[in-house]
């Protein structure tokens, strides 16, 4: 940075080459920045600013900027006016104040602003030195192949009930067909029997179709289901001769022929 070059005294007359001036103006973030530069460069205490030489020097810069037709921000002129005002107040004899009352230094506000600005300027520099996303590191973000996660629709019992209600509502429009009323448990056992026969190759001895451990009521339902299947010609119940074993056979030509082979 441009700080820290000690100088025995502030040069009252200072020449800056025109192109250097353009560069310098660019380098300053505003009048406070320029003032800080002048103060630091002269190595004077910010708390005891020699207002007269500082003002002269500041005005020299501003004048130089103006003569080089650089677009001069109004902020620089406002600051110039402020410096001149402080300088003139410094020249006035101090009014006597009652004991204990503080005497306000005309420079106090300027000093407060310079210090706060310098603090922020240094903080900006520090922030910029901290590791920053994208500039100094990247976020880890590996790939997720969402299609690998097969999402299946969820169905609840209520969905089925609603679907059934919809079917019934629809069925009113088709009065020609009837929806049979049967015990659901019988229908379930019809499925179980068919599955049992299918898995066993289509041919099972009657007694093997029943699991006595399931209890009487289940056995009854199972038997009813078997009779219903026979009535619907889905299976055959055969007995070669009296007292011979009874067989239950899937009334499925294909399966039957396979089981015969």
């Amino acid at each position: 940075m441009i700080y820290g070059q000690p100088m025995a005294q502030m040069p009252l007359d200072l020449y800056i080459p025109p192109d250097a001036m353009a560069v310098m103006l660019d380098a300053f973030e505003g009048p406070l920045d320029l003032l800080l530069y002048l103060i630091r460069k002269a190595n004077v205490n910010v708390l005891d600013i020699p207002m007269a030489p500082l003002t002269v020097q500041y005005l020299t810069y501003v004048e130089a900027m103006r003569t080089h037709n650089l677009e001069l921000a109004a902020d620089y002129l406002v600051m110039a006016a402020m410096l001149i005002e402080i300088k003139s107040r410094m020249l006035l004899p101090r009014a006597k104040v009652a004991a204990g009352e503080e005497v306000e230094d005309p420079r106090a506000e300027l000093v407060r602003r310079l210090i706060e600005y310098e603090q922020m300027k240094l903080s900006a520099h520090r922030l910029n030195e901290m590791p920053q996303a994208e500039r100094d590191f990247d976020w880890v973000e590996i790939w997720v192949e969402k299609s690998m996660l097969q999402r299946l629709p969820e169905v609840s019992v209520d969905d089925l009930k609603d679907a059934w209600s919809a079917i019934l509502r629809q069925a009113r429009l088709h009065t020609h067909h009837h929806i049979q009323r049967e015990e659901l448990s019988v229908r379930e056992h019809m499925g179980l029997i068919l599955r049992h026969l299918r898995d066993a190759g289509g041919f099972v001895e009657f007694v093997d179709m029943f699991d006595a451990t399931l209890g009487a009521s289940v056995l009854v339902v199972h038997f009813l289901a078997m009779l219903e299947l026979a009535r619907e010609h889905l299976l055959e119940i055969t007995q070669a001769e009296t007292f011979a074993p009874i067989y239950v056979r899937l009334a499925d030509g294909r399966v039957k022929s396979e089981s015969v082979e």
Partner: protein
Amino acid sequence: MAESNPNPLNNSPVESSSELPAMPATMPGDTGEMKRILEAVLLTAQQPLSVADLKKVFTQEISNDVMRVLLDELREDWVGRPAELMQLASGWRFRTRAEYLPYLERLNPETPPKYSRAVLETLAIIAYRQPVTRGDIEDIRGVTVATQIIKVLEERGWVDVVGHRDTPGRPALLATTKKFLDDLGLRSVTELPPLEQLNQTLELADAQ
């Protein structure tokens, strides 16, 4: 899909590691650090990186063989970890292992897909009237049942063929499976909501 082969390296005829030389003595630099560099690059990559891309990362020249050894080692390092280094058609990239996807899903739940009315009605008919043929379902619904609908339910493992009705064409008899009961939290189809009330409503309507 390009990722269908979870371990494409083992059967890539050209680059199979058995043909590769062991880490050459001329291996430049510190291979541990080189792997860490590759890892950093691959962990942040927005798309798969080709071997040519990965070579650009290093200032020194790296042969394809060396790069291959490094990538193979890096992939080995990630065995047993929740992501895997994949070689895809367009290059290398890390990918979350499938078994961790349900956890990611819980973080950003998407609305689950839904079955169409046709699928639900078909399922309801099979559940309440099993065993039924496709013709039975069509009679009850009053419309043709697309093969696709039955297929969806079969693929889900909720419905299967339990036999064939002994009528012309020997139509398949469909019934619900044990998986269907498990998935719906039922012990038996008798636990489905009773239909008496619904049927009575219908009869009432029919009588009018």
